[in-house]
């Protein structure tokens, strides 16, 4: 189980998270919803170590791991797909994947397997990663995290700016990963999609949990209220 225990996070003097507690169990998919600037991305960054946090702020399988660097969290099996995809432009698609695969853990997700399941990636594997469409880039960005064979995959705004067709393809890759027991934390702007794709949800507002519960039982009126803070 991966959890945060009433965690505070700061960017300089600005406090972004206020005593936020959150958890995700192995194999579970949890959605984080909330308006822009609510602290969803900050929460993900805090978990992987990109934003500083006290030692007992983040727990993984009963161990305090808060504040460790991103490479250490990756080695423990927590990977982040960053907002905006962030592929390395000087590397080809294949090189992006090779870099991650070599630095990550070994496991079921390998580059040949991903190429086989998503043949479109095989076609553009030797192109520079900047020469792809947004949807293709997002597939590569998720694959780059998958080949590290994490137990927990954190996805930040993976459907932002993509065509509906591309969004479906991206979620197809994600559901393939989930079907093999990978736990997923989704930050998603599309609330309907987020609730449909997840087991549980947290609605975050101004750095605090405003509402949480099972996605299937979510009351859309209450979610809207928590989302907009009205």
């Amino acid at each position, binding site marked *: 189980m991966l959890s945060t225990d009433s965690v505070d996070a700061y960017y300089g003097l600005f406090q972004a998270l206020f005593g936020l507690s959150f958890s995700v169990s192995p194999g579970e998919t949890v959605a984080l919803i909330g308006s822009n600037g609510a602290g969803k991305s900050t929460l993900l960054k805090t978990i992987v170590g990109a934003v500083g946090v006290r030692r007992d702020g983040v727990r993984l399988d009963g161990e305090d791991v808060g504040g460790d660097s991103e490479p250490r969290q990756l080695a423990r099996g927590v990977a982040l797909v960053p907002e905006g995809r962030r592929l*390395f432009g*000087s*590397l080809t698609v294949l090189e992006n994947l090779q870099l991650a695969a070599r630095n990550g853990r070994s496991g079921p997700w390998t580059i040949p397997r991903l190429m086989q399941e998503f043949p479109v990636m095989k076609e553009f594997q030797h192109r520079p990663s900047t020469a792809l469409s947004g949807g293709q880039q997002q597939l590569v960005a998720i694959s*780059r995290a998958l080949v590290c064979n994490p137990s927990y995959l954190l996805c930040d705004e993976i459907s932002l700016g993509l065509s509906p067709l591309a969004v479906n393809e991206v979620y197809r890759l994600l559901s393939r990963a989930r079907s093999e027991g990978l736990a997923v934390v989704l930050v998603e702007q599309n609330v309907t999609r987020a609730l449909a794709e997840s087991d549980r949800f947290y609605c975050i507002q101004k750095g605090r949990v405003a509402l949480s519960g099972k996605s299937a039982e979510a009351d859309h009126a209450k979610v809207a209220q928590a989302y907009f803070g009205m």
Partner: protein
Amino acid sequence: MQIAIETLVGGLMLGALYALFGLGLSLSLGVMRMINIAHGDLIVLGAYLCSVIMQLLGVGPFLSLILVVPLMFVIGMLLQSLLLNRVVGGGTLSPLLLTFGLSIVLQNVLQETFSADTRSLQAGDLALRGFHLGGVSIGLLPLLSTVVSVVIFAGTNWLINGSHLGRQARAVADDPATARLVGVDDRNFFALITGFILAVIAIAAVLYGIRTPFAPSSGPERLLYSFEAVVLGGLGNIWGTFIGGVIIGVAQLFGAKVSSGLGPFFGHLVFLATLLARPDGLFRRTQR
């Protein structure tokens, strides 16, 4: 005509050495986005280390490299992890100021330890030997320097483009924050890079020290030539640095033929003229 060809060949070989100086600068700029003002003084430090080891063990300059290269590698790793990592990534000004200070400290420590006298590395008759090729006389030492330089450039280019190490380097150069997300520990990696840079510096220092006398104050001049090679070739382009160095070398030797004191001046002149025509350098990697 024969003199012109001889000057050209000599310039090419001198330039290959300048290129070797520039390689480290090119790497630290390209991968760490850091300008190391102390680069020239580190070259001089390498030459002095070599000189000391030659005296202590009674070996020649090339044999001393067996010790100097690993020593400089370790110094580079320590320098980066203890000092330079504190400022890297925080804008361009902090590394500039820190390495400027480091340059002053290095020069003074060298002067305090070895006095201001010039030294050179004695390589016996190797420094004097040469042969004739179609009427053009070629020195054995410059030829050796050129071969070493080309081999090191080819090796570095292969590392950058075809190895895991190089993929990490390019990823960190593109986006350090995301590189950490795919498991690149940038601080440790930078230490490795600086270690590599200083190992290359050690080799360049020996080749130059045999050829030209050096003193604790020779660093800034070495830095200047390195800089010219890197900027002329275009930032972020390994072979561009090599060509840049060669151009500076050729210009200097032709200048020296005009009048013996005008060598460096001609180098600067060609450098400025090229930058007027191509402000991004000759082979700037295309902007994304």
